[in-house]
């Protein structure tokens, strides 16, 4: 097996008296889609926020490409190639696709010694990258607000990939999407993975996870319930683990089918 690009060992995170994570370990190899599953409050978001530098872990170590990593803020993680796409904070709807795509990384050209935003290059790159991801834009000036939720996620993913992400963290990319949009986003994840980028996909939808995941880690109440490879585990087992066992069993008997 290839060497992991990022390794998190026994990560603990306490918020005052609340223990959000109590010793979680996770690793990611290039070119895989590692699904992080868990119910609400399981600690998924806390874990990825530790990975992207928003939180500092209370205890535990993070290794990036074999070296210990100390992240001070989100910009640190962006600069070494850890990109996070947040579900609701991915894009600014009022701005054009190009302006969003290059937000914070604008290409410039010098005219008479003054740096100007190179709209032409930016537009060309945006159109090309979006076409690669299977989205044909009417025009690069189109506001992101005119795109569907799935397309917005795709723009954010394409942006992260274009700016050299080695690790791509997707925070519930499919939770607000319809069926077709979900499949588009999952197809994008597959394309990204095939480019050799490690993807961490956070979801609480087992079917979405099963569709693209290579490995699955289930979190429950701040602890890892283990990591399973594709083919070693069934959707039912994952579902069972996510809900922590018993409660779901009762629910299932009362509902008469899987949730």
């Amino acid at each position, binding site marked *: 097996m290839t060497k992991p690009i990022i390794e998190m060992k026994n990560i603990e995170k306490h918020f005052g008296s609340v223990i959000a994570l109590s010793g979680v370990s996770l690793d990611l190899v290039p070119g895989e889609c590692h699904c992080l599953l868990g119910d609400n409050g399981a600690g998924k978001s806390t874990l990825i926020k530790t990975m992207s530098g928003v939180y500092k872990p209370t205890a535990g170590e993070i290794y990036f490409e074999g070296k210990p990593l100390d992240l001070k803020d989100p910009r640190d993680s962006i600069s070494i190639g850890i990109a996070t796409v947040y579900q609701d904070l991915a894009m600014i709807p*009022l*701005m054009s696709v190009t*302006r969003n795509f290059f937000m914070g990384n604008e290409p410039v050209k010098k005219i008479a010694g003054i740096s100007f935003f190179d709209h032409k290059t930016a537009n060309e790159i945006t159109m090309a990258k979006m076409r690669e991801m299977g989205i044909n834009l009417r025009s690069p000036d189109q506001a992101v607000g005119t795109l569907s939720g799935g397309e917005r996620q795709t723009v954010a993913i394409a942006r992260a990939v274009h700016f050299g992400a080695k690790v791509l963290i997707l925070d519930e990319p499919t939770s607000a999407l319809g069926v077709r949009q979900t499949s588009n986003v999952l197809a994008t994840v597959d394309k990204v993975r095939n480019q050799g980028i490690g993807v961490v996909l956070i979801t609480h939808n087992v079917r979405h996870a099963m569709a693209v995941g290579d490995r699955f880690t289930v979190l429950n109440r701040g602890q890892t319930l283990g990591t399973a490879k594709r083919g070693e585990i069934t959707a039912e087992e994952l579902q069972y683990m996510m809900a922590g066992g018993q409660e779901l069993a009762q629910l299932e008997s009362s509902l008469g089918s899987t949730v």
Partner: protein
Amino acid sequence: MTQSQQTKSVNDERVKQRSRFHQALIRPELGGIFGTILVFFFFFLTARDSGMFSPTGVMNWSVVSAQFIIIAVGACLLMIAGEFDLSVGSMIGFAGMSIALLSISMGLPIWLAIILTFILCMAVGALNGWLVIKTGLPSFIVTLAFLFILRGLTIFSAIATTKKTIIGGVRDAAEGDWLAPLFGGKVLAGLFTWMGENGWIETFSRGIKKGQPVIEGIPMLIIWAIVLIIFGHLLLTKTKFGNWIFASGGDARAASYVGVPVKRVKILMFMFTAFCACIFATAQVMEFGSAGADRGLLKEFEAIISVVIGGALLTGGYGSVIGAALGALIFGVVQQGLFFAGVESSLFRVFLGVILLLAVILNTYIRRMITGER
């Protein structure tokens, strides 16, 4: 799958293609453009014979519009960056008083008084911005506090040092100064004299100015307005920093997650607004030759109204400098035009309110078309 099928499947059949004309028309400034046409059309019909469109008439409303433009450009960029500045009007009074006190009461040369005032005002602007960023309070509240603080300080400092609220004598003090003409001077005087000699524009027929053109030159105020429009427009649409302004106002958190220095952008925009207010104040002091503690009253609202007529979104992230300038032009033309048309001046507000309402309705409609808001 063949190529044609592929393209077909990728193109969304639910998105209607828009014509080029439609696309060119759908822009944030459209409300401002329509408003401007409407206003000029109206006054052309009602006040054509009143001298409103004679050279002096044009100069009259141009100067008033230029004043509005100067503060509107600052307010526009700040509003797009997601913040308000309600202290603009008080800042104008404060800056004017500062120049007068520093030069007349303290005897500093005018150029030094102007430079110190600019530094002082931009520092207050930075303080405004810093407070908004640090406390996380709405800028509406923070700058409202400064509306009172600055106005109070202006009146207090004037009365405490000179026992007056109007300090005159600035014009005499500015005589021969190298910096003052940059705000109070006129350019292209030669051109107008030449045009007068050729009979293209009117000349005075009596008095000591006999033979001189009725317009001595273009006031620096108008030059400042044009320079600020060009600067603001280029900064906003053609630079990296402009993208950051949009991003900071559109969604500050999303912007900072991708590395936009949102705090720096916002504080700089507060400073720029203060800078614009200071230009207004300096030009006004040079023109009147005096500073008054009540100058600039209600200017913050006039700036904000101009910006909103120009198509900017009150909550930030969307707008246009050209639009704001057109909004300011409408404001100036209506205010002076009603005077030319001999209409009761109280109707100015009625007219303005109607234009504001129409422009905002049209702008909202356009913005929804552009951004896909529902």
